[in-house]
């Protein structure tokens, strides 16, 4: 038996290369740092927030930003705006990320199975997906949330259902693309079974693009989830959620416009950061030989 050579010079793997390229993109990097900051803020909200986000006092309602002790003012119940915005990151990010993650799992599974098996399985799965795709996303989200009734769980279900079809479609087309590539044929020619090929050859090539696509939906999901809360179909009070805060503060629009704008600013910052980060990631992944 031949000897195995040990001191191999290993090239950095795909993701390492992507990471390095990503680090070289200042805009994407800044966006990623903002996202990271927001996530940390959400995770450590109870420790960071200067005040109890639920504790209000009617005597200090609707103080403008810059008020002593309340750097970002107070909301319509006299709760500290800064603390609520910090805590709001939890639900808002949660509602942005979790539905997309759930949809990523389900949608990717559907798409990869459909794309790899082709034929009738594909037709059946993708036609079903098409039915849900036949609804504009906002309509579907609103209709589902409206039918199921407001609440975080229902919002999660609605958004997950909204994002499964697009992810499944992308997964299907990427998989179909990969499936017909020569290296998959070569693996088949080596006698590998379908599951092994999917695991070793398809997933590695498919998950990246699907993941990036899903990432690009996080911003949409956030805006949509906040929109549902804004309509009164999402998170229920007194939970601090940016969309809901936007809704409840709306009545103070004329007295404290700046204050009312704050939750929207947070949504905007988060979604633009996610978008820029995704753009950066996408171009970092676009490695040409």
């Amino acid at each position, binding site marked *: 038996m031949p000897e195995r050579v040990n001191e191999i010079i290993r090239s950095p793997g795909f993701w390492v290369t992507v990471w390095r390229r990503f680090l070289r993109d200042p805009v994407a990097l800044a966006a990623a740092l903002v996202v990271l900051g927001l996530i940390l803020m959400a995770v450590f909200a109870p420790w960071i927030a200067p005040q109890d986000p639920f504790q209000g006092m009617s005597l200090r309602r609707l103080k403008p930003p810059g008020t002593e002790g309340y750097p970002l003012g107070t909301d319509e119940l006299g709760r500290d705006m800064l603390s609520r915005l910090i805590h709001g990151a939890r639900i808002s990010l949660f509602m942005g990320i979790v539905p997309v993650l759930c949809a990523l799992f389900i949608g990717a599974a559907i798409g990869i199975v459909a794309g790899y098996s082709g034929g009738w399985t594909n037709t059946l799965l993708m*036609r079903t997906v098409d039915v849900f795709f036949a609804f504009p996303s906002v309509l579907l989200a609103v209709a589902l949330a409206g039918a199921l009734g407001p609440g975080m769980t229902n919002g999660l279900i609605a958004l997950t259902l909204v994002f499964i079809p697009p992810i499944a479609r992308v997964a299907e087309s990427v998989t179909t693309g990969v499936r017909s590539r020569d290296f998959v044929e070569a693996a088949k020619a080596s006698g590998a079974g379908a599951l092994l090929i999917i695991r070793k050859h398809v997933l590695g090539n498919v998950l990246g693009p699907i993941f990036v696509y899903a990432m690009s939906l996080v*911003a949409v999901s956030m805006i949509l989830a906040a929109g549902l809360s804004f309509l009164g179909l999402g998170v229920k009070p007194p939970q601090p959620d940016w969309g809901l805060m936007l809704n409840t503060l709306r009545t103070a*629009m004329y007295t404290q416009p700046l204050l009312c704008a704050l939750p*929207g600013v947070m949504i*905007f910052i988060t979604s633009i950061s996610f978008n820029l980060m995704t753009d950066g990631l996408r171009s970092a992944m676009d490695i040409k030989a």
Partner: protein
Amino acid sequence: MILYATKRVLLTLPIMLGVTIVCFALVHLAPGDPLISVLPPDASQSIKEQMMALYGFDRPYHEQFLRWLWRVLQGDIGTSIRTGRPVSTEISKAVGNTLMLAALATCIGFLLGTLFGFVAGYFRDTWIDKTASALSVFGVSVPHYWLGMVLVIVFAATLGWLPPTGAGPGGSEDWKWDWVHFKYLILPAVTMSVIPMGIIARTVRALVAEILSQEFVVGLRAKGLSEVGIFGHVVKNAAPTALAVMGIQLGYLLGGSILIETVFAWPGTGLLLNDAIFQRDLPLLQGTILVLAMFFVVLNLAVDVMQTMLDPRIQRA
């Protein structure tokens, strides 16, 4: 071509059936009493049962579905429980209003989006591209309902230049295309155009960059075409995809207008949907969702056929 169109239409039928099933199932998922909008909570049980029977809510689901589907096929999408008016008249008026809004928004979004997209794609990696791209990222990232609020605060409440809500001084039925009425359309349409602007700009930018990187552009230069001439070619190459994106965006606006219409009290399908949800007017909810979804399906179909017609590369069979 006709064969192709027929084929596409036939392929759409199962999807339409699926859509009707989803629409029907959606409202029956709904917790709570379907008659809540006509029955006050203090109505007695016997009145309630009597009414359930009157509206057919006591029958098994599949029977209700088949009856409903049968009536839908005959063009009757039900009667609003609350108002007693046919859902179709409610919707047709609302669709008209939303269409007006969405069409203007699509136009604004399309004009700006294409402009930014073309400029960015042409001047790739220059500051012009960066500015135009920043605007398009703004478009896809901004929560438009919030933007709507901000615009109302600035232009209606503070500056008083434009009216904050409604569809004209006399309501949508008095609509006229004059400045007095048009004023009411500006804020909602601008707000609504932001997302399609962003999406179209991004699509067009990618499209233009992709087309410009193709060899045939070198070919066009080599045969002596000026930049204006090349621009014409780029437009024609980009048109099928760009128009398809625009069509689909129009569909999204029609179906997704609920947030904007709620902010601006614009009497369109979104507001109707909102009313239907919060008043638990199930037939109205069902009908509105159905019509909007069907609209979207048909629009997709039209976009598809149109794209096939515009793009000689696509095989028609």
